[in-house]
């Protein structure tokens, strides 16, 4: 196997990613190492199978949904930029940052909202609940859990949860602490 010098990132690319996502230089190069080690086909992009090869992710009940979060609408491959953009949502926000585009609750909302219509319907909520509990809870119980959750969150009466309503419910949870990953420098 030849040296990996041919697949090193160009400095300009690293700078661009740094500006866009806020990761530091060394974090970007380390994550690039990780990206290439997952990329078994060595074609510069990751497919869903590449993610599913991670055993700890495969046993996560929401594994498939999480993998989905990396792939733009209708696409089957994600390149390094896309990979970094998704991971940027989980970077803890520094005090001096104005980069409010990235936040963990957006990804969480996307995990519920499969058809990306910016609303979590009762069906979508049920689907996620079913994924998380497997066969251990009956349909009726699950249904009532879903109904109650929507009742509590829904403020404009359309029987679904919009992104703003979602944020409102999460106000009492410290999203930052629960969702962010502690990237080392």
């Amino acid at each position, binding site marked *: 196997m030849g*040296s990996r010098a041919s697949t*090193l990132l160009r400095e300009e690319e690293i700078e661009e990613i740094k500006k866009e996502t806020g990761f530091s230089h060394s974090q970007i190069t380390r994550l690039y190492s990780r990206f290439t080690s997952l990329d078994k086909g060595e074609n510069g992009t990751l497919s869903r199978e590449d993610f599913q090869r991670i055993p*700890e992710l495969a046993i996560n*009940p929401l594994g498939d949904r999480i993998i989905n979060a990396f792939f733009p609408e209708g696409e089957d491959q994600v390149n390094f930029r896309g990979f970094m953009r998704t991971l940027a949502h989980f970077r803890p926000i520094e005090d001096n940052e104005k980069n409010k585009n990235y936040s963990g609750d957006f990804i969480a909302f996307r995990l519920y909202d499969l058809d990306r219509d910016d609303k979590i319907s009762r069906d979508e909520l049920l689907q*996620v609940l079913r994924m998380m509990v497997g066969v251990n809870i009956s349909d009726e119980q699950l249904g009532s859990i879903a109904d109650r959750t929507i009742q509590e969150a829904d403020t404009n009466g359309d029987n679904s949860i919009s992104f703003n309503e979602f944020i409102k*419910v999460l106000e009492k949870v410290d999203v930052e602490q629960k969702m962010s*990953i502690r*990237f080392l420098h």
Partner: protein
Amino acid sequence: IGYLLPWRLCLGISITVWFTLLFFCTIVPAVLGVSFGMRRLYMATLLKIFEWATLRMEMGAKEKNQELYKPYSNIIAKEPSSSLLQEFQELRGSASCLSSEPEFELADIFYFCRRGMETIVDDDVTKRFSAQELQNWNLLTRSNNNFRHISLRLTVLWGLGVLIRYGVLLPLRVTLAVTGISLLLVLTFLVAFLPNRDEKVHLMCYRICVRALTAIITYHNRENKPQNGGICVANHTTPIDVIILANDGCYSLVGQVHGGLMGMIQRAMVRSSPHIWFERSEVKDRHLVAKRLGDHVADKTKQPILIFPEGTCINNTSVMMFKKGSFEIGCTVYPVAIKYDPRFGDAFWNSSKFGMVNYLLRMMSSWAIVCSVWYLPPMNREEGEDAVQFANRVKAAIAAQGGLVDLIWDGGLKRAKVKDAFKEEQQKLYSKVLVGEMDQNQSDDKHSQDDNPEDANNRN
């Protein structure tokens, strides 16, 4: 033609010199079991050179204002993993156990989401199946992400390294290997006529093979060496493990019958000592395998059996799940920990990347194979312990001694998908959080091999 003669003379002389050197420096000591200590000197010199090379690289990178890749440091700080139940209890406060109403929060998803993302960035398993990354560069391009033209001196040094490794070390080692194997084949044939010499023959051949790889081995605690009537288990990194261990004692190997050269070697080995080779069809029959192993250990005149319970090669940073088969037989187990020093050459066989021949060539063109072998005190299965718990106990001892990470994951995950049972376990746990404790019979797990790896790790 006049000017060709001196050349041919030179060639003739150098070949003679080479072979004499070869004979006296390597084969004779191997036959007699003596060592000149040259290999340790070699090691010390190499280490100094590597440190210098890495320093040059870092200085060179600073000058050009580039940063070096640092693959060996961690990407994220993982909290000591608490179990699913613990984390949700924190999330909800301690009142949740008492309520009869299922409590679901939209934020529950955060737990799974964050855990999932963390494993995408850095997981415990997939990195065990590729070569470990080094802190200092050891002048092999294969172990370096940073190799660019940083400085002339460094490139020259690297070029010199290539010349030495491929021009001098490799041919030398190949010659030795061929000698060793031929001797093995010839002598084991002769040994049939000379009883009681088989141990000497065996050790001599393995010593030649060890020198063929420039393997520098340190054995610790040799008083714990495996005895007859027992099974020796060790962590598996490469097929060379066998040579490393057999260099210091006689073992019966277990494996599948091969054809071709391997088959010939296998048949030759059986002539001098009892090895256990299985036909391809017999391998699937676990009872047959257990019976043959059991019969062998019952006979106290036979050598200890050597088994690698992981079943596949791991990259020597961790020990993965031990298959319980060898621990069910009921005899004494002698654990052995093998740790390779990756600075001189990476011994790990990545079988999905390299075939056997390619791998051997890489081995023979590295600087050296340096390793430590620890013989651990023998272990027996205790009262009330089943085979799996015994296997895990042995595995923990080996991991602790070798400085390796003790993982509960199956090495078979290199190629196979993880079992669905683990995901179902996670779902069951979360359901408990939602609706409280369910039937006691269903919820608590026994110690079985299907345990959820994360929670089992927390239990230990």
